[in-house]
Every structure is written in C-alpha cells, then in structure tokens.
C-alpha cells in the first residue's frame, strides 16, 4: 500500500505543530523555573473568578447560538425554494470571515452607548441607553458569530439526509412535528455535539471580543487576563498560572466532547441539490419565515452598522496615511503566507489520516499516530493561539528583541489556528474522493504527485479554495498574536485598529473596520467565484 508518502507528510505536519506548541511549553516552563513561587501565588481568587466567568460566558454563548440555530437550520431546510435562500446562506458565511474586531465595532456601532440604537431611542424620547459593555456585549457578539456558523453546519447535516427520505416523508404525509422527529432530529442530533463543541471552544478561547467588549475586570476571560499579564504587568508567573488553567479547562471540555461525539462519523455523501417536496402548514411556514427573518436581522444588523459607521469616517484621508498603507500591505502578505502554510498542514493531516485508515482496514482499531492526525486539528483549539503566543513571547524575550519575531509568529500561529477550519473543509471531500478512487488509483498505478494533480486536485479544488479564503480572512483579521507581538515596526490592520480605538479615535477605527471587513469579504467572494468556475 502506498501509505508511506502520505503518512510521512502527516508526520511532518504533526512535528511542526508539536514544535510550535512545544516551544510555547518551553517558554512557560522557563517562566515557572524562574519564579515558581510567584506562579503558585497567582492561583488566587482573581484567577478563580476569571476562570468561572470564562466558562459561564462560553456556556451561555453556546446555548444562545446553538438552540436558535437548530430551528433556523430546520426552517431553512424546510424551505428549499425560499427566494433569497442562497443569499441568506452567503450572508451567514460572512461572520466567519469577518474579523472579530470588526464585528465588535459593528456591535458597538449598533448597540453601544453612542450607537444607532441609542440614537433611535433618543429620537423616541428615551434617553439613558446603558450601552452594551460587559457580559451582554460579549454574548451578543458571540451569538452574532456563532449562530450563523451553527446554522450552516446544522443545515449541512440536514442536507446530508438522502433525498429519498424527504420524498418518503412527503409521501407518508409527515407534518412538521413528525418530520422533525423522524427525519430532521436524527440528523441534527448526530451533528449537535460536534457543532456545540466547536462553538463552545470558540467562545471559551475568544480573545478580541472580550478584550474590546468586556469593558473591565468584571468581564475578563483567561485569554484577556493572560494578555494583560504579559503586555501590561510583565508578570510571566501570573501568565503561566492563567495559561495552565486555560489549557486544563479546554482540554477537559474537548475530552468530554470527544466522548459525547465519539459515534460521529464524517459523512461522505455528496451534497444534494435542495430539491425536495416538503409538506408545510401555513402556520408552520409563517413561524419558519419569522424565525429566518429574525436571524437575518440579528446577523445583518451589526454588518450594516459597520458599513454605515465606516462611511461616516474620513476614508480618503485614511487611505492616504502611510501607517494605514503599510499596515494593509503587512496584513495581506502575512495572511497570504499563513493561509498557504495552513493548507499544506491541513492537507498533509487529512491525507495521512485517510492513508492510515485504509492501511489498517475497517476492523482494526486506529493507531495512536492516526488518532494524532485526526485530533491534531482539535489540539490547536485546546492550546489557543494566544497561549502559544504567550509561551513564545516568554521564550523569545530571552533570545533578544521579541518584537522582531512578530512576522514569523503571526504566520505560523495563524496558520495553525486556521487549520481546524481547513481540515473541516477538505476532509469530507478528500475522503469521499478517496473512497471512490483509491482502488482505481492502485490498479492503474497512479500515485504521488501525478495522483495529486490528476485525481485529488479536481475534487479538492473547491474546498481548498474555500479553505484558503477562510484561512486568509481569519488570519487577516486576527488580533491574538499580533496583540502580543505587535509594535510600531510591525503593525497589521487589526493592530492599528485597536490602537485607534484605544486612543478614542472612533471615526478612524470605524473607517479601518470597514476597510478590513471589505478586504476579508472580497477575499471570500473572489475565492468562492474561483472555486465555482471550472
């Protein structure tokens, strides 16, 4: 079996990831050796409170995102020919590509103390809108991100129900409730642990939203506390304690979810065109449409606010600023590199996992190595980018000028951070293509580069392009690592944006947010088009 090449590629990718995470661990170990007493002292009530808040907000965010998403996804599945359905789904893909800092500004522009909603209320004679800092702001922003994400993922699981089953349900005369019970819920239930887990992880490790919307020590998560410990207090001992708690928490959650979702298998069925007969009563249709409309307003609101607020800024002056131009160029180059590295990593892991699975046969248990290629993607979520950044920050401080390493750190950490998404995009297509072509390739002797070019690439082009766009957009808008490593010498757009926000240049920030949002969006649209064109 030609397992060797693909397994070696996977091993290399894993080694790279291990080096990245291991280096961070080394840095933290160094800090511990330096001041272990300080690290122990850091396990104080403050840390406990921060940890509790981290979990609490993640739990609430997950519930508020996934529960409505179940019903929105179902409503969309039951209206396969709704006018504008494709547009809604595209709009729901935007938050995933939208930088957190842009969304945070959008939420503030809409619901903030000086936002559009406050203006509206004032116009109606009601003053004193309290704004949206703290837990409420964090929740709104998290739901803004994760409701559309969960909806799309759950809808995907519904679309994987064979078309014949929808037909059967229609023929048997199943109404909304029976159809939910027999057709939709089994598909949703299978996807639910994975989706809820992903959302929980994203919220538990969310940094930018909490940094910009938390608004104080009462609403601080572990990640933000780590950042503050390193960047403002220069307290590696405290950062170490916080990091350990963060990693332990996320590891526990990931393990629990792996238990819960163990029966989940990646579906290899081809996407069916949503052409199915659905029997709906008028009342159900009305409820579905109202639900979709509400979700649409909630998701589109902050986006519209971003655009409106951005257009209010002096865009021409901003575009002429040298700092803005330099930050834009830096952002584009670094994110392009990060996305390329991300795809290489993801593809190596996906191909290795499949090759190892084939080599062992369906009956044998997966080896540790195969599991590593499988869970390698999830591992990055356990060790959040900011934690990796923190470890390297401490380590590199000993090696010289920390800030000189900014480009390397941003590219590698962002690539690793985006990898789970790339794996999600590539793996089903790769496994499906492999299931169809593996034996044929073996019998015809097509292997290695030829196989990649002739057999794998055509079926992977679209998911790869999508993954590249997502990876680049994610990295373009990331504020995790650059917040630690950024300086006047290496500024990305999000870093510049944060600086303008911090110095209360709100109009500038809104203009930059519009620019950054547009860049990410354009990227996604272009790549989507490229992927569609044959």
């Amino acid at each position, binding site marked *: 079996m030609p397992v060797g090449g693909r397994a070696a590629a996977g091993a290399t990718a894993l080694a790279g990831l291990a080096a990245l995470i291991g280096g961070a661990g080394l840095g933290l170990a160094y800090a511990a050796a330096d001041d272990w007493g300080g690290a122990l002292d850091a396990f104080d009530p403050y840390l406990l409170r921060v940890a509790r808040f981290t979990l609490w907000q993640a739990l609430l965010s997950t519930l508020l995102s996934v529960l409505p998403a179940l019903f929105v996804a179902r409503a969309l599945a039951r209206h396969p020919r709704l006018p504008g359905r494709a547009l809604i789904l595209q709009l729901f893909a935007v938050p995933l590509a939208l930088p957190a800092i842009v969304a945070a500004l959008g939420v503030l522009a809409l619901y903030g103390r000086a936002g559009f909603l406050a203006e509206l209320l004032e116009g109606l004679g009601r003053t004193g809108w309290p704004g949206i800092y703290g837990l409420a702001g964090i929740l709104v922003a998290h739901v803004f991100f994760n409701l559309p994400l969960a909806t799309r993922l759950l809808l995907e699981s519904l679309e994987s129900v064979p078309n014949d089953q929808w037909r059967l349900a229609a023929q048997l005369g199943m109404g909304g409730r029976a159809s939910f019970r027999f057709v939709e819920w*089994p598909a949703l239930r299978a996807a639910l642990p994975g989706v809820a887990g992903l959302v929980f992880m994203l919220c538990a490790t969310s940094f930018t939203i909490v940094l910009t919307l938390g608004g104080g020590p009462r609403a601080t998560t572990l990640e933000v506390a780590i950042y503050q410990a390193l960047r403002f207090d220069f307290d590696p001992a405290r950062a170490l304690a916080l990091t350990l708690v963060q990693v332990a928490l996320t590891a526990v959650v990931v393990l629990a979810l792996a238990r819960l979702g163990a029966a989940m298998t990646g579906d290899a069925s081809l996407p069916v065109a949503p052409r199915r007969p659905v029997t709906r009563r008028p009342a159900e249709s009305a409820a579905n449409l109202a639900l979709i409309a509400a979700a649409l307003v909630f998701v589109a609101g902050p986006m519209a606010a971003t655009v409106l607020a951005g257009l209010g800024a002096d865009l021409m002056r901003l575009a002429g600023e040298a700092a803005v131009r330099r930050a834009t160029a830096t952002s584009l180059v670094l994110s392009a590199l990060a996305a390329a590295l991300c795809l290489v990593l993801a593809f190596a892991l996906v191909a290795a996992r499949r090759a190892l699975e084939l080599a062992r046969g369906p009956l044998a248990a997966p080896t540790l190595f195969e599991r590593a290629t499988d869970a390698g993607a999830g591992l990055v979520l356990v060790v959040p980018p900011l934690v990796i950044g923190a470890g390297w920050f401490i380590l590199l401080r000993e090696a010289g000028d920390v800030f000189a390493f900014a480009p390397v750190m941003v590219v590698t950490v962002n690539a690793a951070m985006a990898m789970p998404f790339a794996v999600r995009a590539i793996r089903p297509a790769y496994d499906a293509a492999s299931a169809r072509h593996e034996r044929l390739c073996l019998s015809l002797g097509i292997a290695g580069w030829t196989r990649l070019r002739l057999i794998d690439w055509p079926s992977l082009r679209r998911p790869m392009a999508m993954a590249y766009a997502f990876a680049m957009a994610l990295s373009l808008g990331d504020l995790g690592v650059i917040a630690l490593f950024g300086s006047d010498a290496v500024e990305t757009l999000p870093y510049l944006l944060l600086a303008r926000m911090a110095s209360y240049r709100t109009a500038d920030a809104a203009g930059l947010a519009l620019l950054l949002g547009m860049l990410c969006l354009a990227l996604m649209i272009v790549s989507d088009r490229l992927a569609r064109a044959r």
Partner: protein
Amino acid sequence: MTGPAGAAIRLDAVRFAYPGGAPVRFDAAVEAAEIVAVMGPSGAGKSTLLALIAGFETPASGRILIGDSDVTGLPPARRPVSMVFQENNLFAHLDVAANVGLGRSPALRLDAADRQAVAGAIERVGLAGKAARLPQALSGGERQRVALARVLVRDRPVLLLDEPFASLGPALRQEMLALVAELHAERRMTVLMATHQPEDAARLAGSILFLADGTVAGTGAAATFLSGGGPQAFSRYLGDRRIDVARPRENDRDHGIARKTP
C-alpha cells in the same frame, strides 16, 4: 382487508424540466391493475416520470390523472400512491415495525388494529420475528421487504417501483419479483416499475412503457417488445438480451438458428 383495486393512470401532455436539465414531455395511459415496466436508457426520464406521478415534482404544464381524479396539484401524501426507491427506503434509527407503521400513521400513533396490520404485513413479506430489528441489522433484500410491507399497510391503488431490486443479486431479485407478483395478485394495485432488466419485465410486466430522450417512444405488450417485435429503438436498447417470454430462461438470440435441429 381486500384493499382497493388498482386505479388507471393517465398523463396528458405533461411537461417538466429540472433546472438546467433537458425538458421532458409525457403522454401515457396505464390501465387499472396492470403491471407496466418502464424501460429506457439512463437519462431517458424513468425516474422523472415516477417522481411526477408520485408528486415529488410538479409539471410545468399538463395533467396527471389517477383513477378519475386530477392529482396534478396534490401534495405527495394526498395521492393514492406508494413508492419504493432503490435504497434509503427506511429510517435508519427506527426498527422494522416502526418503519412499517409509518405507512399507517406518519406520526407513528398506532392503535391496536394498526399494530395488527403492521405485524401481519411484516409476516406477509417473510420477516416474521424481525419486527424489532434496526435496518442496519437487515440484508439489502430484507430492507426492500420492509418497504413492501409498508406498501401493504398503506394500501394505495398505485405502486411505483424505482429500480427497487437493482442492487440485489439474481436469486434475491427473483424472490422479490415473485413477492411483488404475489402481492399484486392479492391486491390488484396498478404497478409501474422502472427497470433496466428485461428479465424483470418478462417476469412481471404485462406491458412495457419505453422512454427515450424524455418522452414515451413506444408502448405495447411485454411479450412482443421483449422478443424483438417492438420499435427498432427498443430492440437496440435491449441489444442481445432479447427474451422469449414463453421460455424466460432461454436467451435465444436468433429464432432462426435456434429452430435448426442438427
């Protein structure tokens, strides 16, 4: 329960096209209680025809009549039709009894009489003792038997079979065809069966509806068609699989040679 006798089916100038697909136009009449094999090359429109009759797709124009009533605008559940697909006929998380029971009540609210009917149907298709199994514990043939049991408890005048036995081996297929023949003898429903296998048509069908390029290219007695007496296009479609229906086992390609005795 004797069940309703079959209903006649008529398609009047039915036009339809999938988005981006080639348009089809069907004119056809099937008599009540007949068994008709729907044959034709892949892409000729066999599945489309069945989907239109079942109501999964709505014609752009034209009328579909079942019995005396126009069903063109009716949703699938309100049509007097049951359908068996090639696969995915069963809900994987429901046991055999529940899958059959759905034919009685789509919300699975079954009274004692329903349960009895379900048990009877499961026994009738030869799955006695397997009512509590999940589909994954059944063979391919057994799954299709469950689908047929559901057809029995639904008891509709029209049965549509969309290549239902295409993925079964020859012996199993023979068994399933025999079962369909028996059920038809008991219930006298009208059966439309899409198939590529001349043997299926020879075994079951009284007549053949031949489709080509999205339209009905010929109809006639199965015996005539299968022995080479149908339209030229149908004989080309058959190739060398011509069958003398009187002796279905024999694949006598050329009657002239077969008759020559040494």
